[in-house]
């Protein structure tokens, strides 16, 4: 039983995205650097243990660098412009005098420890959220994510997949044309006209190549039956895209309300009614759009990812820390989540938050390992 459970397979992409987004939300609710660093460590551990070997999986390192850059940028920003200053002055830089009308903005000058820490905590929180999203991207192949979308979004998925495959091809044409150009005895471009000519000699062949390719691709898709599964009428199309757009807009407003704490409007049972209403209306509109367009789709999916026990466990491992942090925020000691900077207090973790981090690390051990494309000996035939 356990043996079967641990057979290598890719997890449902929604599971990884759900897990990662839950952790990102957890990170968003705290500025405790210890907790944030713990989340980064856990996410890195899970990613390294469970990512596949597709090109996206290798992108995680980039997100780590991006996170580091964000932290460094935030801190450097505090050094240059100050803000959130406290009594502990570390060093004083020569201040650049600014004219009267930009009063309130300061360049350089005294740098306080508190100001730097504000920058550090804030940057760390943003970096952790970025790294969580990066982890989701490496753990779940974005293409499998598209494949798991409802069939109404199929067209969108196709567009994305095709454009992804076009980029390397454009790159190929480009390097080929650049290489070939060296054969022509091109003299130094002196006039403006000649410099424009240089652009023309590259862009014209690359674009005509791209055009030929897209026509070939369109023909190939047509030949293989693309678009056979029924076509929606213009009315239905308009209805579904209108409803879809409206739904997305409503959800955007909802997310704004959600982030703008304290919320606006009446609250019942600790739930903001305006927020809840916006959420329900947004989801309803999107579901409506999908129902309308999905009625016509007669298409099937090859090797659809299935939702099994491991997927549920992964999602729970992401949701538990989020719930614990929410609990601590509401009923526990909020100073653990937001350690005080002025006066400066050394941040600490309590056992409950440690447990949350431990739960978040579980997917590295309790999920089946990913199926690697290069693993295993040459396969024997069926017959």
């Amino acid at each position, binding site marked *: 039983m356990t043996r079967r459970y641990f057979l290598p397979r890719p997890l449902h992409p929604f599971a990884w995205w759900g897990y990662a987004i839950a952790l990102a939300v957890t990170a968003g609710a705290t500025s405790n650097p210890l907790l944030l660093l713990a989340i980064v460590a856990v996410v890195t551990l899970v990613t390294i243990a469970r990512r596949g070997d597709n090109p996206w999986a290798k992108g995680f390192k980039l997100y780590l660098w991006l996170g580091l850059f964000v932290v460094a940028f935030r801190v450097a920003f505090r050094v240059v412009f100050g803000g959130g200053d406290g009594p502990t002055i570390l060093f004083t830089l020569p201040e650049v005098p600014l004219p009267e009308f930009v009063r309130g903005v300061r360049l350089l000058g005294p740098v306080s420890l508190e100001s730097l820490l504000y920058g550090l905590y804030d940057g760390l929180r943003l970096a952790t959220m970025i790294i969580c999203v990066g982890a989701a991207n490496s753990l779940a192949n974005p293409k499998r994510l598209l494949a798991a979308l409802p069939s109404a979004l199929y067209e969108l998925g*196709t567009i994305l997949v095709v454009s992804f495959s076009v980029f390397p091809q454009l790159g190929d044409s480009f390097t080929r044309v650049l290489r070939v150009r060296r054969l022509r005895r091109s003299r130094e471009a002196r006039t403006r006209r000649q410099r424009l000519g240089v652009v023309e000699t590259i862009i014209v062949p690359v674009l005509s190549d791209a055009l030929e390719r897209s026509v070939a691709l369109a023909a190939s898709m047509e030949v293989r039956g693309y678009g056979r599964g029924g076509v929606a009428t213009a009315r239905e199309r308009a209805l579904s895209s209108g409803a879809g757009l409206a739904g997305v807009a409503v959800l955007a407003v909802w997310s704004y309300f959600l982030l703008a704490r304290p919320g606006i409007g009446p609250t019942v049972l600790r739930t903001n009614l305006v927020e809840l209403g916006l959420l329900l209306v947004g989801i309803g509109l999107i579901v409506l759009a999908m129902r309308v367009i999905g009625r016509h789709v007669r298409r099937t999916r090859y090797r659809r990812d299935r939702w099994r026990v491991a997927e549920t466990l992964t999602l729970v491992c992401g949701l538990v820390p989020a719930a614990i942090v929410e609990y601590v925020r509401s009923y526990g000691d909020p100073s653990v989540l937001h350690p005080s900077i002025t006066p400066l207090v050394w941040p600490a973790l309590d056992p409950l938050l440690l447990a949350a981090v431990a739960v978040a690390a579980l997917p590295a051990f309790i999920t089946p390992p990913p199926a690697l494309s290069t693993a295993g000996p040459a396969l024997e035939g069926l017959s």
Partner: protein
Amino acid sequence: MIRFDDVTFRYASNDLFRLDGVGFTIEEGELCLVIGPTGSGKSTLLGCVNNLVPLFTGGVRTGRITVDDRDTTLLPTRELATTVGYVGQDPLAGFVTDTVEEELAYSMEQLGFPEAEMRRRVEETLDLLGIADLRRRPLRSLSGGQQQRVAIGSVLASSPRVLVLDEPTSALDPIAAEEVLALISRLVRDLGTTVLLAEHRMERVIEFADSVLLVHPDATVRHGPVRDVLRDAPIQPPLVELGLGQGWDPLPLTIREGRRLAALQRRRWQDDPPALPAPPAAGETILRAEGVVVEYPGVVAVRGVDLALREGEVTALMGRNGCGKSSLLWALQGAGRTSAGRVTTARRVSLVPQTASDLLYLASVRAECEAGDVAAGAPGGTTEALLRNLVPTIDLDAHPRDLSEGQKIAVVLAVELVGDPEVVLLDEPTRGLDYAAKAVLGDTIARMAAEGRSVVIATHDVEMAARSCSRVVVMAEGEVVSDGPAREVLASSQLLATQVAKVANPLPLLTVEEYERAAR
């Protein structure tokens, strides 16, 4: 299975008929080989089967086409997807997804196959094509032959009744082409699918073909048994040409048949060996490469090649795709990367790259010619005169992209020749050329050699090498594995021997002409 009834086709902007009164019937399970010179309308004819022509190309089509007893006139191409599987020339251009398995399943997803059925068929197709070990590989990382096999598999998976293949091997090297053609002939025998195949390497499939459909340049067709149609076709494999010249009956289609028919002649030659034409004398060395190494990250393309090119010599550079031919040519020209070694020449070296059209970006042939004059500092009209010499019929106002492959090469060559290079390097100039265009190219090469230039052509085309080249250099894994007079290298090799050489073996005769002269 497929019936054309008085079908005509022309583009709306043009009164010229591409197909004119075409009528034929192809029975179920038949393998029909479609032949004809380039531009004769082979692709148009094949596109008509699943209505890509005129739905995708535009134009006016009249007449009636029935496939599997269904009149296709009003059906869009996608509705025919369950009946007709279509494979084009460049597999990479037609891929929609990015891994092997998903590409195989794509058609079935569109046609709404149930999931279990789809899974089973993908597994079967992987085995049928012998690509089970590639299932998760990205399509772009496959070799050309593997890509084309996947492309064929992706239409086969939904088991269409008819398979239409439009020159499936034209972008492949001979080994990969062999792989694909062997697969097609096996499919015909094992599955009994009706196949319509356009193929210029017809000698490889001719023995499996049940019939030949010859498309004439005047847009009419002739359909009939293989030997009958080939007897007076304008394009014939060398073996058929030889058989006709020697009056052999029945006409040989395979090397085995040819050798049996030539047995008597060979015995005669054993007793009385005929004189063989001597290779033309080459002049002094004008380019010398010593220890050339070309490295790319992770790959060594050329490992220490020494090569000397002489005046008036035509050299064929052969070897499988990726063996370093192009890299060597680029290194010889000087524009490419050279990691070590040295190329010494006092003369100008010109290179015509594989995709000649990349060098053509102006709006008309005339503009290209003028740009060529300006770049070389030659008096106006020089390039044009050179071009007229190569292809007298070229339309100077045409857009370079609209020219045929052969004409594109001619334009690039003319622009290069204005600079009066002593060494001319051609990277796969025969790709996409038909017999007539190859003959023109052969003449051009002979003329350049007669003017004292040294010409190198990288090619897979054995017949071209045998006819035009005096020397053959074979490369493998970045090294030169054999280098010598064309007669010695080509006739002694299993893989590179021409059809005539295989028939005449052990006597090293390469072309039909040589055979006929020796037999006289």
